[in-house]
C-alpha cells in the first residue's frame, strides 16, 4: 500500500464516523517536469513534486471545503469541512443520485512522460529552437514545454473508492520577428495525454510558424467591420468552446431563473446541420477520463443537435436542481479546489462541405486559422486567430495581421451556413474558469463558415 492509499483508508474511516448530508475526499500525488527557452538559451528547467488532499462536505445545501498538504490532523480537517457547511447551510441538500463505485482499474492507464530523461526532451526542443533561429529577420523565440503525471484517489460517504491517473504533455512555441520597432509573433500549441511521441516530428510546422512571424511584419491589418469568415478546425474548435460550450455549463444556469428561461431545452441556436458535442469518453484525449471528480462516470453529451439545444453539462448538484441526469462534468484542476462544471472534449460534428465549397462563393471575406485565445461572457465572446488571409473572388489572397473576432451567441451560431467534412481535434488548449486554469481540455471542429462576423481592425 502506498502512502496516499494508507491516508485514503484513514480518511474513509473518519468519514464513516462523521455525519453530514454528503462527504467526499480527494488525494493527489503528482510529478512535473518543465523546460523553457527565452531566446536561443534554455531559460529554466526544473522538476516538481506535490502531494495534497481535500475534504468537501455538504450540509443543508451548502458546502464546506478544506484543502491541505499537511496530513497531520486528518479528523480535524474533516470536522472543519462539516462545521463550515453547517455554518453556511440553511436549506435542503440536493444531489442527483450516484451509484457507489469501487474501481482501481483506471490506474496505470497513461504513459508517464515525466520519467523520460530530461536530455531527450531538451534534444527535441533544441531542434525546434534551431529551426526557428535559422529563419532570417527572426528576433527571438519562446518555448514552454511541460509534462505531468498525477494519481488521484477519490472516496465519498456513499462508499465510493476510485483510483485514476492522468498524464499530460504540453508544448507552446512562439517565434518573434522585429523590424524598426515593429514586433510580430506567431505561435503554435500542442498537447497530448502523456504521449511524448505526439510532440515529436513537428519540425515542418515549427519552421512554417517562424516564417509566418516574419511575413506578418509586412502584412496589412484588416479593416474592422462585418465579414463572412471561414474558420479552420483549430479556431472553429475554440469557437465551439467559447461561443457555446461555456453557456452549457449548468453552474452558470441552475440558480439563475432568467438564464434558465433563455436556455430552455429545444430552443433553436443554429441551422439543422449544427451539432455540438461534449465527450469525455474518447480514449487518449486530454479532456477524457473514466470518472469525474465527484466519482460520476464520464458521458458523451449532445449540447446542440440539429440546431436545437438538447443537453447541458452537469455536476450532481446542478443536475438535481434542474431535475436532469448528471453528465459527469464536475472537474477540479487540483486538490486545492472543489470540482466545478467543466467541459472535456468539445467539438462540432462534421458536415458535408469541402473547403472549396466553403470559400468558393465568397466575394470578399477572411480565412482565419489557428488560435491565440478566446474568452466569453456567455452572451458575448471573442476569439483570436493566429493567422488570417483575405478571401477574394472565392480564392485565398494576401496574408493579414492576426485578427480578433467577436460574436453574440444568440446570433452568431445562427449565422453558421457551412460545415466542412474534415473534423480535427486540437489538443493544445487549456481552459480557465474562476481561478482554475489551465484545465486540460480538447476542442475540435471541421472548417466552418460564419456570415456577418464582427472583426476588429483599423
Amino acid at each position: 500500500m502506498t502512502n496516499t492509499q494508507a491516508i485514503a483508508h484513514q480518511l474513509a474511516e473518519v468519514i464513516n464516523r462523521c455525519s453530514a448530508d454528503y462527504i467526499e475526499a480527494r488525494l493527489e500525488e503528482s510529478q512535473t517536469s518543465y523546460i523553457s527557452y527565452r531566446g536561443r538559451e534554455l531559460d529554466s528547467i526544473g522538476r516538481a513534486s506535490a502531494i495534497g488532499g481535500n475534504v468537501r462536505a455538504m450540509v443543508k445545501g451548502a458546502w464546506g471545503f478544506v484543502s491541505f498538504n499537511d496530513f497531520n490532523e486528518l479528523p480535524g480537517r474533516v470536522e472543519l469541512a462539516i462545521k463550515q457547511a453547517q455554518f453556511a447551510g440553511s436549506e435542503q441538500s440536493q444531489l442527483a443520485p450516484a451509484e457507489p463505485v469501487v474501481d482501481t482499474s483506471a490506474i496505470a492507464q497513461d504513459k508517464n512522460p515525466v520519467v523520460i530523461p530530461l536530455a531527450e526532451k531538451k534534444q527535441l526542443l533544441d531542434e525546434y529552437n534551431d529551426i526557428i533561429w535559422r529563419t532570417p529577420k527572426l528576433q527571438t523565440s519562446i518555448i514552454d514545454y511541460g509534462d505531468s503525471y498525477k494519481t488521484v484517489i477519490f472516496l465519498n460517504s456513499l462508499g465510493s473508492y476510485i483510483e485514476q491517473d492522468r498524464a499530460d504533455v504540453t508544448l507552446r512555441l512562439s517565434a518573434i520577428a522585429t523590424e524598426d520597432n515593429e514586433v510580430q509573433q506567431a505561435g503554435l500549441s500542442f498537447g497530448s495525454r502523456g504521449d511524448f511521441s505526439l510532440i515529436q516530428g513537428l519540425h515542418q510546422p515549427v519552421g512554417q510558424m517562424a516564417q509566418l512571424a516574419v511575413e506578418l511584419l509586412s502584412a496589412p491589418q484588416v479593416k474592422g467591420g462585418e465579414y463572412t469568415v471561414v474558420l479552420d478546425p483549430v479556431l472553429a474548435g475554440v469557437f465551439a468552446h467559447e461561443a457555446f460550450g461555456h453557456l452549457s455549463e449548468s453552474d452558470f444556469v441552475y440558480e439563475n431563473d432568467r438564464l434558465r428561461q433563455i436556455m430552455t431545452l429545444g430552443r433553436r441556436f443554429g441551422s439543422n446541420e449544427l451539432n455540438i458535442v461534449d465527450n469525455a469518453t474518447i480514449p487518449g484525449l486530454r479532456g477524457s477520463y473514466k470518472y469525474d471528480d465527484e466519482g460520476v462516470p464520464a458521458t458523451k453529451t449532445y449540447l446542440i443537435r440539429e440546431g436545437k439545444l438538447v443537453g447541458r453539462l452537469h455536476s450532481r448538484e446542478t443536475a438535481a436542481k434542474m431535475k436532469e441526469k448528471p453528465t459527469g462534468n464536475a472537474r477540479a484542476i487540483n486538490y486545492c479546489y472543489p470540482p466545478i462544471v467543466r467541459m472535456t472534449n468539445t467539438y462540432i460534428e462534421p458536415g458535408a462541405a469541402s473547403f472549396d465549397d466553403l470559400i468558393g462563393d465568397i466575394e470578399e471575406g477572411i480565412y482565419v486559422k489557428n488560435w491565440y485565445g478566446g474568452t466569453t461572457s456567455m452572451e458575448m465572446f471573442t476569439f483570436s486567430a493566429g493567422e488570417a488571409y483575405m478571401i477574394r473572388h472565392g480564392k485565398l489572397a494576401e496574408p493579414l495581421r492576426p485578427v480578433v473576432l467577436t460574436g453574440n451567441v444568440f446570433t452568431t451560431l445562427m449565422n453558421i451556413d457551412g460545415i466542412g467534412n474534415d473534423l480535427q481535434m486540437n489538443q493544445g488548449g487549456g481552459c480557465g474558469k474562476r481561478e482554475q486554469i489551465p484545465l486540460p481540455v480538447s476542442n475540435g471542429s471541421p472548417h466552418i463558415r460564419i456570415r456577418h462576423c464582427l472583426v476588429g481592425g483599423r
Partner: protein
Amino acid sequence: MEQILAQAKRVAEEAEVFMVSAEETPVQFEANRLRHIQSKQSSYMALRIIRSGKIGYATATELGDSQNLVNAAVETAPFGMVAKFELPSLSIYPKIEVFDPKVESVSVKEMINLGEELIATVRGHTPDIVCDAGVSKAIISVHIINSRGGQANYKQSVFSLGIQGQLIRDTDMLFVGESESSCHPLTETGAIAGKVLQQLELAKNRASVPSKPLPVVFTPHGVASALILPLMIAFNGKTVLKGASPIGNRLGQMVFDDKLWLWDDPTLAYRPESRPCDDEGIPSQRTPLVQQGVVTNFLYDLQTAALAHTRSTGNGSRSRGGLPTPSPSAFIIKPGNTTFDEMVNDIKEGLVIEQLMGAEQGNILGGDFSGNVLLGYKVESGRIVGRVKDTMVSGNVYQLLKQITAIGSDARWVGGFLNTPSLYCPTLSVASK
C-alpha cells in the same frame, strides 16, 4: 530548511531554499446566497542550486523528503543556465508593513455579514440582478535562506472583498462588478457597492456607435483590461534582453506622451502586492519606468540583470513555483488633474471603456490590442447616454499612449496590481454592428 541547505551545500557551490506557506479562508456567495466556506492550507519548498556553474531547480510540497528534493535539483543542473549572478548575503530590508494581525481574527461570521451587506445593497438598487460575491482572508509566510548567509522572512496578511452582478433581460446580459483588497481587514462595503450602482445606472439605456475612429476615455478598469498587459511585458527585463520589447532600445527616449509617469512600487504600506524583499531576497524598491513620457528603467531579477550587465530591481518573482523571473509588483500611473466628468464633457461623440474582453489575445508583444466592449458607454455632446454593445475596438498601446488628451485625477486600485486614473485618448478605431 537549514537541513536542506546543508545537504545541498554538500553537492553544489551555492544553494538557496525558498519556502512559502499559506492559510486562506474564502467565503463564497453564488446566486445571491452563501454557498461555500473554505479553508485552504498549502506550503511548498523550492531549492535552487549552482552546481558546476549551472542552475539546478526543484520544488516539492512534501517537506519531509529533503534528499529527493536535492536529487531532483542536481538532476536538472547539467541542463540549466550558466549562473551569472551571486546570491545576496545578509541584507538590510526596508520596513514595509504588510501584516495586520487583525486579519487573522476576523470571524467567518463577520465575513459572511460583509458579503450579505454587499449583495443586499446592490439588489436594493436592482432587485432582479443575480450576484456572486467573495470575501477572503489569507496569511502568507515567506522564508528564504541561502549559502551566502542571506536570510529573509516575512509574514503577510491579505483581505479581499468583491462582487459580480449579472442582469439579464431577454437575451441581453449586463455584467457589473468591483473588488478591493488590502493587508488590513476591510470593514466597509460602501465604496465597492457604490461603484457597482454607478455601473448599473450608466448602463440603464442602450446606445449605438458608428464604425469609425472615435475619442475614448479608458476608466481605471478600462486601462487594466485593455492597455496594461503589453506594458508589463515590454518593461520586463527579460523581454528587453531578448530584443522582443518594442521599447527595449529606447531607454532615455521619449516614447509616450509627456504627461505619462509610470512606476513599479512594492513598497507601499499594507498593499497586498508589497513586500520587504522579492523572491530572491533582494530588498524592495520603487522603480520609475516612465518619467514625463521618457523610458527610464526596466524590471530585473538577479540572473536577467547579470546577463544585461545591470542590477536587479528586486523584481524576481516565482509565479507558480518556477525559477525566479522578472515580474512587476504593482504598476502605478501618476494621476493628472482632469476630472472624469471634465473628460466626458469634452467629447462630442465618443466612448467610455470600462471593460474590454479579449484584449490580451492578440500580438501583445507588439502592443496591438483588439477586444469586445463588454462594458462601455456612448458619449454624445459631453454626456454619457447609454451602454454600447456588439462593439469592437482596436488599437496599439504605443500609438495610443504617444498622445494622451488628458490624465484623470481619479486614480484608484484595480485588479490588485494596478493603480491608475482614467486616460482620455484622442482616437481609437471602433467597429460596431
